[in-house]
Structures are given as structure tokens and as C-alpha cells.
């Protein structure tokens, strides 16, 4: 049946009533809480998104915010019903799922619909409607069937998008390319206050003040999500997200942060988590319970690839030696310390033991590979990366070898630089076995323009023989995965300090099936 917007009126009784009253602005209805006043402001200022694709399901997301930086996003405090549709085509001629979702101020008027009953490995288009206003259309894609043979998967991954440090040109490029799924690996917002920036309005209070309370975190997400390039990247493909430190506060570790005693910090963490969930296309299963949130989870793309999405913040031991960049020592090697927490470590290793996929991917926050940052024989490594948790690293990489994990690949962010490395069973011994490949993506903007190879990057390449490629510009990584090989295409932006920078491939790195580590670097 050829239909367009009109079909919205027929999805359900409740939806029809809402739509009808919305179409007759002067007439008051008897509907509870509905005054008949129609708000003509665009409620979809923050765009739409989808995420956490399964073979039969995907989460679609929006948030109603006609005045996005104002309290409650400019919404009043009554509950709202939002209609949604999922179609097999961009024109919404073949609508396969639709319904009504209820939201309100307690959820920042965000909408998370876990759309079920979809077909595997196909594109869908979705949109929302409220008060007679239609959202932009988003495109998404379900995962392949569990045992499907998948000839090729394309994915992108990104991290670290300090809003005030530049333009999201990388996202404009990402949205132009065709990715089946996008991984976001942390630092979606920055919580601290700044006093100047690249972009106009960088000196507005919603950017210059640190976020501590729930209203402040919500406002920060709104400020970031107003960006049209970020919105277009969300609208083009489903995202699978995890968080790192700055969604809460710089370098927090479980309940430890120097800014506050644990009881007080738990309140901040709860506020940060709540705002994070509200603004991400996450399932209800990730809805925070106060300061706790289930974020580590697994996604399978047929027989081709399995992605273990980690949370290395919420359960980690406090950073060794007071954080910073230090020499490894008894603390970093202490087997009682962990970056994953015991339960997540067991979940990861048990999952690997059962894995049947060609590629096994860790999608997570920060580098596993050793990063010696000091020229010469002295070794100085970051205490916040897996270098600060050597025993944890040995258990995970050793555990992968013991379980004969096929084609281990780590994708991560955090460093604000591109770093591609072989993962070694023992980083103290360059001759030890290579057990996997690691692709750390650079930041979307954090650090402003950067340069091809800075002094720090040159040192890293000299001091870390397992490191095969480094770059200090901004960008993201676009990957093509087939049963035979994995190609990581490092997309870099010449300048993020101006609008309309040029995005190009800086290097392509190859991993071959059955051969751990990076096989080839094409520059």
C-alpha cells in the first residue's frame, strides 16, 4: 500500500488521538495533560540515532529538546507520547514496525525504542513524530544472522570529540562512507570547564563550566549533539558505544577520583551515567541503577566477527603510582590489580572460549600495547592504559592464547593519536609471540590539528618495536573485514581548527587471517 506520512495517523488509537489533536491547534481535547496548545518549535534539534544492532533488533533513539540548552531541553514537565516508524525503504512505503513510546522529564524526554522482529543484515530507515512534527530520517542496519556467512563487514570507530577543539569534519566524512556499524570508544563529551576554544560559543557557560550535577551533564550532551556532522554520522549507521573517563571525570577509576570522597563521587558517577544513557542509543539493559551501569556486552556479526565491548573504567583498580607516566614496577605487575574487574575478565575469557567467529575483536577504551614514552633505556609508560595493569593484560592476552582465539584485534582510542601495534604476549621481550593486532584510533578533535609525526610519536616508534604506525592528526578509522583479511584505513583531517577541512587516508594497515599482528602498512 503506497502511503507516506498519513500512515502515522493509523498506527494505534493513542497515537491517532495525539496526532489528531496536534493537527487541530485551536481545539482543546479531553486528553489528560494535553492542553491543545501546539508547540511549533522543532523538538528534534539533537537528531536521531540507532544502536546495539542484533540480528532481529536495533535500538532507535531521539530526544525531544526544542530549546536544547535550557532546563529540560525546553520541554514542560508532562509526559509525552512519541510515535515511531521503522521501514524497509527510505520513503517509508514499506513500514514494518511502528508504535508509540512514552517519555518525560525523568528521562530528559529521550526515546529509546528496542525495535524487535526485524530481519537480519538489512538496512532499515526510522523516524519519530510528535505534535505533528517529523524527525529527520535515520538509517540503520541489523546484524547478520548468528550463523550467517558474511562476505564483508565495514565498520568505523572513533573517540575523543572535544567540541571546543575543532570541527567534526571527520564525522562528515564518516557519514559519506557506507559503514555497517560505528563503534564509539569513549570521551563523547568532556566534563571539565574550559575558557576558550576553536568554535563560536566556546565561552558560553554550557561549555566553560565543569559538569557535576545531572542537569549539567544533560546540558553538555545537548551542546555536543547539536553538531550537524555528529548528527549525520549517527543517522547513517547504528552505533555501538562505550564510555571512557571524560563522560564522568578525567581518569576516574571505579569509585576513586581525587575530586571527591567515594560516597560523593558515586553521586557524580550516577549523574554522569544517567545522562550518558539518556543520550546514547542503548538498551534498557544498560539503564544505570544509580552509579552502576551494565555496559560491557557482546555483538556477533555472523561467523565473521564477534565484538567484545569492554568497560575498563567502572571496575578498575586505582591507577598505580598515583597515575601519570611512570616506570613499570611491583604495582603495575600486582596480580591483585585489574583494569576489567574479575567478573568482566571471566565474561571475556569465557566468551572467547566459546567463540566460533573468524575475527575476535576487543572494542574498548585505551591501548593494550606497551607505550614507552621515554627515549633511551629508561621505560616510562602511562599508568592509565593497560601498561598500568600488566597482570591484567597478561591474563587477557595469555587467556586469548590459551583459548586459541582466532584473529584477535583490539580497537581503542583515548590517546589522541593513531597507534597501530602488534600485541605481544610479553612486551618485555620483543621476541615473544605476537598474539594479535591493535588499532588505536586518534581523536575526532581533541588536541586540535596536530601534525603527521610529532616528537612524542617519533619516540613511541623508536622505543616500541611492536608499534608499526603512528600519526598525530585528528580523524577516525574505517575498516573493511572479510574472512581473509582486515584492513584499517586511517582517515585523517588536515585541519579541524577550520570548517571544511580535507579528509584523506593516511595509511592502510592489513591483518591476514591466521597470522597474528599487522601484516602490512601501506602509507
Amino acid at each position, binding site marked *: 500500500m503506497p502511503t507516506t506520512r498519513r500512515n502515522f495517523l493509523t498506527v494505534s488509537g493513542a497515537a491517532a488521538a495525539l496526532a489528531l489533536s496536534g493537527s487541530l491547534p485551536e481545539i482543546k481535547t479531553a486528553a489528560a495533560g494535553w492542553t491543545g496548545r501546539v508547540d511549533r518549535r522543532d523538538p528534534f534539534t539533537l537528531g536521531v540515532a540507532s544502536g546495539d544492532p542484533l540480528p532481529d533488533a536495533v535500538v532507535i533513539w531521539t530526544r525531544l529538546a526544542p530549546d536544547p540548552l535550557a532546563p529540560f531541553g525546553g520541554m514542560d514537565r508532562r509526559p509525552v507520547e512519541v510515535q515511531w516508524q521503522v521501514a524497509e525503504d527510505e520513503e517509508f512505503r514499506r513500514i514494518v514496525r511502528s508504535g508509540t513510546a512514552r517519555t518525560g522529564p525523568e528521562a530528559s524526554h529521550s526515546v529509546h525504542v528496542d525495535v524487535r522482529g526485524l530481519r537480519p543484515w538489512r538496512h532499515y530507515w526510522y523516524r519519530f513524530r510528535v505534535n505533528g512534527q517529523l524527525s529527520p530520517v535515520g538509517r540503520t542496519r541489523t546484524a547478520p544472522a548468528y550463523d550467517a556467512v558474511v562476505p564483508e563487514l565495514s565498520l568505523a570507530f572513533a573517540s575523543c570529540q572535544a567540541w571546543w577543539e575543532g570541527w567534526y569534519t571527520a564525522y562528515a566524512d564518516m557519514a559519506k562512507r557506507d559503514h555497517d556499524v560505528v563503534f564509539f570508544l569513549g570521551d563523547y563529551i568532556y566534563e571539565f570547564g574550559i575558557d576558550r576554544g576553536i568554535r563560536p560559543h566556546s565561552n558560553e557557560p554550557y561549555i566553560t563550566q*565543569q559538569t557535576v*550535577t545531572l*542537569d549539567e551533564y544533560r546540558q553538555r550532551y545537548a551542546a555536543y549533539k547539536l553538531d550537524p556532522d555528529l548528527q549525520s554520522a549517527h543517522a547513517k549507521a547504528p552505533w555501538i558505544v562505550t564510555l571512557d573517563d571524560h563522560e564522568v571525570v578525567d581518569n576516574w577509576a571505579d569509585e576513586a577520583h581525587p575530586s571527591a570522597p567515594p*560516597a*560523593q563521587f558515586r*553521586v557524580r558517577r550516577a549523574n554522569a551515567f544517567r545522562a550518558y544513557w539518556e543520550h546514547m542509543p542503548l538498551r534498557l539493559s544498560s539503564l544505570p541503577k544509580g552509579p552502576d551501569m551494565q555496559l560491557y556486552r557482546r555483538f556477533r556479526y555472523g561467523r565473521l566477527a564477534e565484538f567484545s565491548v569492554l568497560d575498563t573504567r567502572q571496575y578498575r583498580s586505582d591507577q598505580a603510582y598515583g597515575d601519570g607516566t611512570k616506570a613499570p614496577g611491583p604495582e603495575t605487575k600486582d596480580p591483585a590489580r585489574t583494569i576489567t574487574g574479575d567478573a568482566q575478565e571471566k565474561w571475556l575469557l569465557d566468551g572467547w572460549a566459546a567463540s566460533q567467529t573468524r575475527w575476535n575483536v576487543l572494542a574498548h577504551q585505551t591501548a593494550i600495547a606497551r607505550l614507552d614514552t621515554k627515549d633511551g633505556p629508561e621505560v616510562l609508560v602511562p599508568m592509565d592504559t593497560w601498561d598500568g595493569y600488566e597482570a591484567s593484560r597478561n591474563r587477557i592476552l595469555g587467556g586469548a592464547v590459551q583459548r586459541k582465539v582466532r584473529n584477535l584485534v583490539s580497537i581503542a582510542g583515548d590517546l589522541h593519536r593513531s597507534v597501530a601495534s602488534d600485541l605481544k604476549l610479553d612486551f618485555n621481550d620483543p621476541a615473544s609471540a605476537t598474539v594479535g593486532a591493535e588499532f588505536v584510533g586518534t581523536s575526532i578533535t581533541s588536541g586540535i590539528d596536530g601534525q603527521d609525526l610529532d616528537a612524542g610519536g617519533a619516540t613511541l616508534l623508536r622505543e616500541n618495536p611492536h608499534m608499526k604506525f603512528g600519526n598525530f592528526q585528528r580523524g577516525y578509522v574505517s575498516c573493511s573485514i572479510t574472512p581473509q583479511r582486515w584492513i584499517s584505513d586511517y582517515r585523517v583531517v588536515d585541519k579541524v581548527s577550520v570548517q571544511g577541512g580535507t579528509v584523506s587516508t593516511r595509511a592502510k594497515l592489513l591483518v591476514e587471517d591466521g597470522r597474528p599482528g599487522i601484516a602490512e602498512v601501506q602509507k
Partner: protein
Amino acid sequence: MRIRRQTVVAAGTLLAAAVLGSSSMPAATSDVAATSDVAVSVAPEQLSVVGLPCLPSTLNLTMTNTGSQDRYADLTLEPTGPLQLSRTLFSSWLPAVDPDQPVSAPVEIRVPRETRPGSYQIGVEVDRSRVTVPVTVEPLPSKGPGDNLALGEQATASSTHGNFTLCGAVDGDKDPEHWDTLTGWNDGTRAVFPDTYDVALSAPATVNRVELYTLDSAKYPARLNGLRDWDIQAKVGGVWQTVTQVRGNTLGHVTSTFDPVQAEAVRILCLDGNDHTYSRIVELEVYGT
């Protein structure tokens, strides 16, 4: 003249002001819980504010979950008249724990310079329970001869460290022991000099003396952490001109006198600190003849 300023009440010394008890509020509607399990307090209980741009008054808002379930709560603020609030909403998760755990956030209150003295109020509401905070707008302090012309006037800086506030060096608090409570200015660019800290005078005035208080506490003595080298500049006809210089300083308080100059603004051009990292000013005072 020192004017009275409301200070932030540190956590743990909460005033039991205006606590909304669950028993004192009548039922508002039949379908909404009439009583709130969130106790609200504000400190201080009443405020005064002056129309100086860099001298906001601060009200500390506290919500405490007195119920048995963890919950989220929204505290809304409704000012009357000319009151300008840095926030009108404070939302937070509130744990239900024993002993009760208060959760606090500050709100800054300003009024325009031309605001007439008078009485206003801020309504504070959670779960339809409401408390009112009286606010008195005080007359502007005298800015004549012998008065500190920089007090509360608009500051601008080359940068400000995230743990500090721009207005901290013109807030009337020159006690270096208060450094950790946001009463001073610290630039945001470590080991990069120069840094600038400017104060725009409310009107061009003849000035001939600057009193600069740099960090000089028991823990952080000036000879190790204070400002070492700086130029004092006056903005005359839109142009900065250096009126005097200080070099090799090791003291916490430095008085600089210079030939009278008709200045629109005064700038401290910070050239180095004794630890060569940050520029730190606890208070900057400007006087004329």
C-alpha cells in the same frame, strides 16, 4: 570598603535552613505524592547581592534523600525581579543511605549594576514543595578616592585554570589561605608566559596605586609559588601602556605606586612565577587619588 559577601558553605557544615519536612506540606493533588522524601536546604537562608559584575552572591542548594529508595530529583529555582541566576535547575541522583547523604550544588546570583536596592526572592521547589529565599539588593559600594576601584568589576584573563574562577582575584578576599576555595585566579596554561589578568573599571578613573596579593600561604609560600615578574599596565584611550614593573618578587603582598594615569582598565601582565608554572593572583586592588 569591604562589602559583605555570601560565602559558599562547605559540605558538612550545612545549615538546617528551611528544611521541607514531609509532614508540613498538605497534599497538593490526589494522584501526586503529597509529601516529598527529599529534604531541601539552602545556605545562607537569606542573601544580599550588589550590582557588580564580578561579585556574584552564591547560594548553596542541598537535597537530601530521607526516603528508603534511591531516586533522582529536580530542584527548580524561580527568581523575581532583576535577579539573574547561573542556573534555574539542579538535578541529581540522591542515594538513600544511612546516615543521610546531602548532595549540594551552588547557584550564583547577580543583578545589573543599575538595579535599585530592594527586596526580592528566589523560589526553590522540589516535588511541589517550596521554600523561599529572600534576596536584598544592596547599594553599590562607594568607588571614590581611597576605595578599591577593582572590587567586583569585570575581569578578563588570557586563560583561567578549571579549578579557579575568573572573578576570584577581585572578590574582596585577599587571604591566601583561602586559595583552595576559589577566591583567587590561576591561569590555565602551565609553564607558558605571559599571562594577562585585566579589570575593567566601571568608569575611567585616575589611578596611581596597585596592591597585588599573590599566593603566599603556609603551604605555598610566595618565594616558591608566587608571582615573580610582572608589568602593571593601564588602558588609556584603548591602548595598554606599562606604568610600572615588578621583578624578582618573593613577597605575598606588593604595593606599586606610579604616576597618576586616567585608566579605563588595569592589567597585570604576568611574565613569570617563582615556580615557572602558573600565574597566581589572590587579589588585585586598584586605587586612585
